[in-house]
Each structure stands twice: as C-alpha cells, then as structure tokens.
C-alpha cells in the first residue's frame, strides 16, 4: 500500500480495560480522502478505537500514527496541534450545555482563530445550514432532541474544516429523511473538501452505502475487511453473519459470560 495514501495507521494495537482485553492485536489502515466504516457488535470497542486514535486513551502496546505522527508518544503541544486537524462527533453529541447551538458551533472557531464576529456568524450559519438546523441556532442544548444534538455536534466537528472526521454512530436516532441527508452530507464533505472520514456504525445499509472500505471488528480483532462488495461476496462467516444480521454465527450477541444455565442455577 502507498504510504502517503494512508492517513491513520494502527499496528498491533493492544488495549485492556478493567482487566479485560478490548483490543488484542488490531491492524488497521485508513486511507486519505476515503470513507472508512468501522462496524462491529455493540461493546466491541468501536468508540474506544476512536478515542485511542484521538489519544484520549493510551494503548498498552502497539502504534497508532496519524498523518505521519505517532500519537502514542506525542507531546502535549504537538498533540493539540494535531487535534485541531481532527474532528470528532461523539456518540451523544457532548455539546457544551451552557452555550446556545450557535455558540457551540462557533466555539472551536473562536478558540482557534481571530476571525471577526461577522465572519464567524457566516461560517456558523453555513455549517448549521448544512445540517439543517439554521433555525435552531438560538436554542440551548437541553432544548434539542438527541438526533438534533448530534447534528449540531456534527456542525461543530466540521467548523474548522479538519483533515479528518471521526463519526461515532452518526445515524442512530435520525429519522429516514435526516438519515438520507446525513449520508449525503458525509459523502459530500468527504468528496468536496477532500476529508478523510471514519464512520462507526451499526447500520449496515447506510454504512455500506457510503463506505469506501469496511473494517469489521469482533472480539478484539479485525475479523474481516474490504470494500462493500468484497464483504458481501466474502465467504468469511464473520462477514456473512454481520452483513446479513443473523443471530447465529461466529459473532457473539452476548457479552462474555458464564453459561446461561449456570447463571440461573439450573
């Protein structure tokens, strides 16, 4: 693979939480300018992976490089410089509750640039327009629905036109219309601005409709990866089960536990 084309490179990643291995040797490449979708059952560590890439967590072992910089050993200043070029959409939005929708989107712009109020206003309204919430600019986060909050958070994540955006479950809680808009928005942002997108999702249909490349995680490992067609036609049981949503197969539905009958004392 061409080195310059890879924006994020994860090698032999190991990470444990509360004594349980979440990742046990994960290798992963995220191509520049592409939409990479990360899928996997709930609780496999998709959110954790994004946090590791953003260095909110430190891996036990392995390397993660973003745009040629090794994030696991980056100093404070360099890390913050790098983060200016990363956007992240949190699973629950994580809006600043004491600021209005407008101010939330303006926040990163105000923090990192000296633009005039006039210009900031224009930029913020553009971003809010893109997510269809220009009319909600004066609402407070507490007055938004979950889906709306996530769209505001998306507007905030793209406020500084980063080189890469990580979306944590952007589609949950969206009605079919805003879902369609979001899918197109992610695609357009990616293509028009030359962004690199990492999308974490359960939504096979939506995810495979925008994915350029898919990674399937389960049990702390990458169990399958490839383009949508690759996976759909793959004879890997993992891929087959996940793409078709079958309860039986190698992907466990249950959180690791002792046998059911033991638990019930039968």
């Amino acid at each position: 693979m061409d080195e310059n084309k890879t924006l994020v490179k994860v090698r032999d990643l190991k990470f444990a939480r509360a004594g349980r291995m979440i990742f046990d040797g994960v290798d992963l490449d995220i191509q520049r300018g592409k939409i990479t979708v990360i899928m996997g059952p709930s609780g496999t560590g998709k959110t954790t992976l994004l946090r590791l890439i953003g260095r909110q967590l430190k891996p036990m072992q392995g390397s993660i490089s973003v745009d040629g910089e090794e994030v696991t050993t980056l100093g404070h200043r360099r890390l913050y410089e790098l983060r200016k070029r990363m956007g992240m959409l949190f699973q629950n939005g994580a809006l600043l509750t004491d600021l209005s929708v407008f101010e939330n989107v303006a926040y990163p712009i105000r923090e990192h640039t000296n633009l005039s109020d006039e210009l900031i206003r224009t930029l913020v309204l553009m971003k809010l327009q893109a997510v269809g919430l220009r009319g909600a600019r004066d609402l407070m986060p507490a007055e938004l629905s979950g889906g709306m909050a996530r769209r505001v958070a998306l507007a905030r994540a793209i406020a500084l036109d980063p080189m890469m955006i990580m979306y944590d479950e952007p589609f949950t809680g969206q009605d079919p219309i805003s879902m369609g808009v979001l899918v197109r928005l992610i695609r357009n942002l990616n293509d028009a601005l030359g962004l690199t997108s990492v999308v974490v999702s359960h939504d096979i249909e939506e995810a495979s409709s925008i994915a350029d490349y898919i990674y399937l995680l389960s049990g702390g490992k990458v169990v399958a990866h490839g383009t949508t067609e690759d996976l759909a036609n793959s004879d890997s049981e993992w891929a087959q089960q996940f793409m078709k949503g079958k309860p039986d197969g190698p992907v466990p539905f249950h959180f690791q536990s002792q046998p059911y009958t033991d638990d019930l004392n039968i």
Partner: protein
Amino acid sequence: MINQLQSLGHKALDFFQRLGRGHILIVDVLKGQPALFFRPRLIIQQLYSVGVLSLLIVVVSGFFVGMVMGLQGYNTLVDFGAEESLGVMVALTLVRELGPVVTALLFAGRAGSALTAEIGLMKATEQLSAMEMMAVDPIRRVLAPRFLAGFISMPLLAAMFSAVGVLGGYFVGVGLLGVDEGAYWSQMQASVDLYEDIYNGVIKSIVFGFVVTWIAIFEGYDAIPTSEGVSRATTRTVVHSSLAILGLDFILTALMFN
C-alpha cells in the same frame, strides 16, 4: 485479617495516588494562569459566578455574626466596666479569626460545591472530552479561570465579611446597647494593627482561597463520571475543605500570633 490489611493498603495507595494527581493538576492549572491575562472575559465570567454570587450569603452572615459578637461581647465586657472596648474586641476577632475562617467555610459550601458539581457534570457528559478533541485544553480553558476567580474572590469576600461584621457589632453595641460611639471607633482604630492583625488575616484568607478552590476543582475533575460519582465528589469538597480550613487555621494562627 489479610483482607483487611489488603483493603487498608489499597486505601492508602488510593489516597497517595489522589494526592499525586491533585498536585499534578494544580501545577498544570498554575501553568495555565499567564495565558488568562489575554482572556479577561473568561475570568470576569467566573468572578461573577464564584465571587459575586457568594456575596449575599457572606454579607448576611457577616452582619449576624457581628451582631452576635456585639451582644456577647457587651455582656462580658460590661461586668468589667470595659464595654468601651467592644469595638476592639469585635474587630480583632473578625479580622484575625472569624472573617477568614467563616468566610472560607461559607465559600466552600456555596462556591466550592458548585464548582465541583459543574466540572464533574461536564466530565460526566463528555463535555471535557469534546473540548480535548477540539484541541481546547479543559485544564486551561475550564479549570484555570475558575481557580483564579476563587483565589481572587476569597480574600475580598473575607474583607467584606469583616467589614460588615464590624457594622453589625456597631449596630447592636452602639445602636441598641448604648456603648459610646466615639469609643467604639477610636479604640478600634488605636488597637487594630495593620501588619499584626489585618495583613495576617488577609494572608489566612488567601491561603484558604487557594486551598478551597484547589480542592473544589480537583474533586470535580477527578470525579467518577456518573451521577453518584459527582454527588460524592461534591460532598468531599465540602468536607475536605472544611477540615483543611480548620486545620490550616490552627497552624497559621500558631505561626503568626505567637
């Protein structure tokens, strides 16, 4: 037995780890102070919520404490025919002792708990994480201005408390019980020493302000990010601050007035 020993060791380790984290945090917060110079609006906002909003309770308490001291002092002093010294007694007690201590206790309950709860909830709702990912360091952006505001507010509040307390004593002593007005003020003026009394009181209030605000922001930042964790952190802020205030007051008093 082994288990008890183990849990004791665990608690001790936990304590020292928290102590270490607390010190690392305060160093980071102090390093973030110079940058605040360029963002006065951040500080003004916090001065309002930490300082101005604590003003009412401090002033009201100060007035009542002053009035009580006027009453109690008068009853004691009048037996010795020394009721003219009421002003000195009220002023010295307030400036040296009650002003800084009671203000700090009120400050811990009013502003400290609010700081902890606010920061803890920001952590629990991932707002601090979101800031980090927006390349905004929450220690500099959220904690540092709050710390500075607490540090500035506390001595000013203590001064207000003492001033209002002296008025409360005047109101009861001179106004209601008939102590000579001239004696109340002139004896106070003659006996309260700028260095010995006032400066030492101010130093106490500065130390208390530093410690209470430090505890409050640390507890919030270190809180377990759940509703229970935040509520426990808030309680700890009030309890630990109060103990720290009283303990430090003893040490400072021993050093200063000995």
